[in-house]
């Protein structure tokens, strides 16, 4: 009787993968928890999310635009990061700007990952002409340096948050496509794919339920570090004047705003830059932790 329930459960879990997947996730979580750097990164990200929630609740756009204070006040108890040349409180502006960097990083990489994985999986699975065509297109796009491509995209589409995300995402697609293709190529010839073919599964289903999940770990690790990279690229584009339109307090734009005043008010570009670096660092060490956690070579 009990044996029957187990089988039933397995069946309802869909190929019995439910329990196994959880235990694998649990294993990964366990090794991330043991990795000090990864935990530190995770904690910092949680703090950033709390900052976003706080700024959504308590800091309004009017707040960050208010010019009631004296201008160029150095950091003090009242204004922890000082005030800018227009008398706006930098601390509030930096906290308010947290949402942009994080949203840009996560959404751009998320979108790039979805498109890139589809492109890479299709190319790797079908091979031949499809593969050739997709990968050549990929080569051509990735041969344009990403910052230059981003600049052109923002110029064409106009300055906005959405367009900045597109500008950051497009070059990242190529990275995901290449990695996915490589991992699909390694699993394509495996017996379980042959088996899936033999039982008459459709190509699409084989790709996304058999092939992609088995090549997922490098994709996840790349995605994590790519978020850090995307945040840097977005901030760089903002710094060059191709970011979200002013007066949005995006971090890169804040650094750029303080640039001409660096001699008299260095804190204006120091603090937002510090936040960019800390956020990118958090994603980088998380990526490192995930790599260690997912790398079978390092296990046990």
């Amino acid at each position, binding site marked *: 009787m009990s044996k029957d329930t187990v089988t039933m459960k397995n069946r309802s879990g869909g190929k019995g993968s439910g329990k196994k997947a959880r235990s694998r996730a649990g294993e990964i979580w366990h090794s991330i928890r043991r990795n000090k750097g990864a935990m530190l990164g995770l904690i910092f990200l949680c703090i950033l999310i709390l900052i976003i929630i706080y700024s959504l609740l308590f800091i309004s756009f009017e707040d960050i635009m208010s010019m009631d204070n004296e201008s160029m006040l150095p950091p003090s108890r009242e204004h922890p990061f000082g005030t800018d040349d227009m008398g706006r409180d930098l601390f509030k502006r930096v906290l308010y700007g947290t949402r942009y960097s994080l949203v840009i990083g996560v959404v751009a990489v998320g979108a790039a990952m979805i498109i890139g994985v589809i492109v890479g999986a299709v190319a790797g699975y079908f091979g031949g002409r499809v593969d050739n065509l997709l990968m050549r297109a990929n080569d051509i796009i990735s041969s*344009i340096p990403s910052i230059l491509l981003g*600049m052109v995209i923002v110029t064409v589409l106009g300055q906005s948050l959405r367009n900045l995300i597109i500008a950051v995402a497009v070059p990242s697609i190529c990275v995901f496509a290449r990695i996915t293709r490589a991992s699909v190529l390694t699993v394509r010839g495996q017996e379980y794919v042959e088996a899936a073919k033999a039982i008459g599964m459709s190509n699409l289903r084989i790709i996304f339920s058999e092939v992609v999940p088995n090549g997922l770990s490098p994709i996840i690790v790349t995605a994590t570090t790519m978020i850090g990279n995307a945040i840097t690229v977005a901030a760089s584009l903002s710094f060059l004047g191709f970011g979200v339109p002013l007066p949005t307090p995006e971090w890169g734009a804040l650094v750029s705003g303080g640039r001409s005043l660096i001699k008299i008010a260095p804190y204006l570009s120091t603090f937002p830059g510090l936040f960019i670096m800390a956020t990118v660092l958090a994603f980088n060490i998380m990526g490192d932790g995930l790599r260690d956690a997912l790398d079978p070579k390092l296990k046990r």
Partner: protein
Amino acid sequence: MKKYIFKRILWLIPSIIIVSFLVFYLMDLAPGTIVDQMISGDMTQEEIDQLYRQYDLDKPVIYRYGKYMLGLLKGDLGKSQISGVSVWREFIKRFPNTLILSIGGLIVASIIAIPLGIFAAKHAGSIWDNLSTTFTLFGMSMPGFWLGLLLILWFAYRIRIFPVGGASSLKSFVLPIISTSLVMMATTARQTRSSMLDNLRADYLRTARAKGVAERDVINKHALKNAWIPIITSIGAGLSRTLAGSAVIETVYSFPGVGKLTVDAVTNRDVTMATGCIILTTIIYVLMLLLVDVMYAFVDPRIKAQYASGSRRRKKGQVAG
């Protein structure tokens, strides 16, 4: 090998056509034209129309692109729509500056990163290893423009040993080179460490030690030789990335290189200058990646063997047989 290089260079042609089409077409689509910036209040409609005609703006984009491509076929990248200078001449004038930044960054990065990576790998797990890992993580995460500003603040305004920007003296290259090298340094040190670690664990090193090879030679001759390939990849990728990233660093330092030229051209909607710069940067970028690939073959005989033509392999097989 030669065939492979030839094929890769041949591939540049469709790439250039597509890249130029993308950039030219996209830039042309962008709201606002070059003429909009020239129009002043006291111009008559006729004068404005005249300007439009002068820049072929009364004709479809495809006409302008066709004209541009015809010029490109003859090796003419056109003239800047704003200053009227030749795109090619301006690019070539500024390219050495950018090259010095990239190569300088590469040298500084390699001199520090490779010994650091080897040291960290040799003492894996020690406090020195942790310190170097922390340093590389910070280096990787620091946005170039921010580091640039901090360096300007400290070394140009506070201590005043280097100029704020420009490229007038040798000294003005120092800060941009440091800014360029940091990310490369960090990634190369990490790559060196992990690649050395992989090799230090390998069986052939145990063999080398067992047969009595001195520890220094074990590292320098045996381990490093095999660890080179990923390190070169990392440096090559870093070098091409600094070329691409030169736009940011050069803007921070108002440095007269091709990166700043491109940024200014895109900002001012100078379609021919922007397209020309991006095409040329892309060509250099692709050639650089090709150079890295070719260098593998020199470092790794296994890869060289792959390139060897089939006939040669057959001959060898006959000899061996």
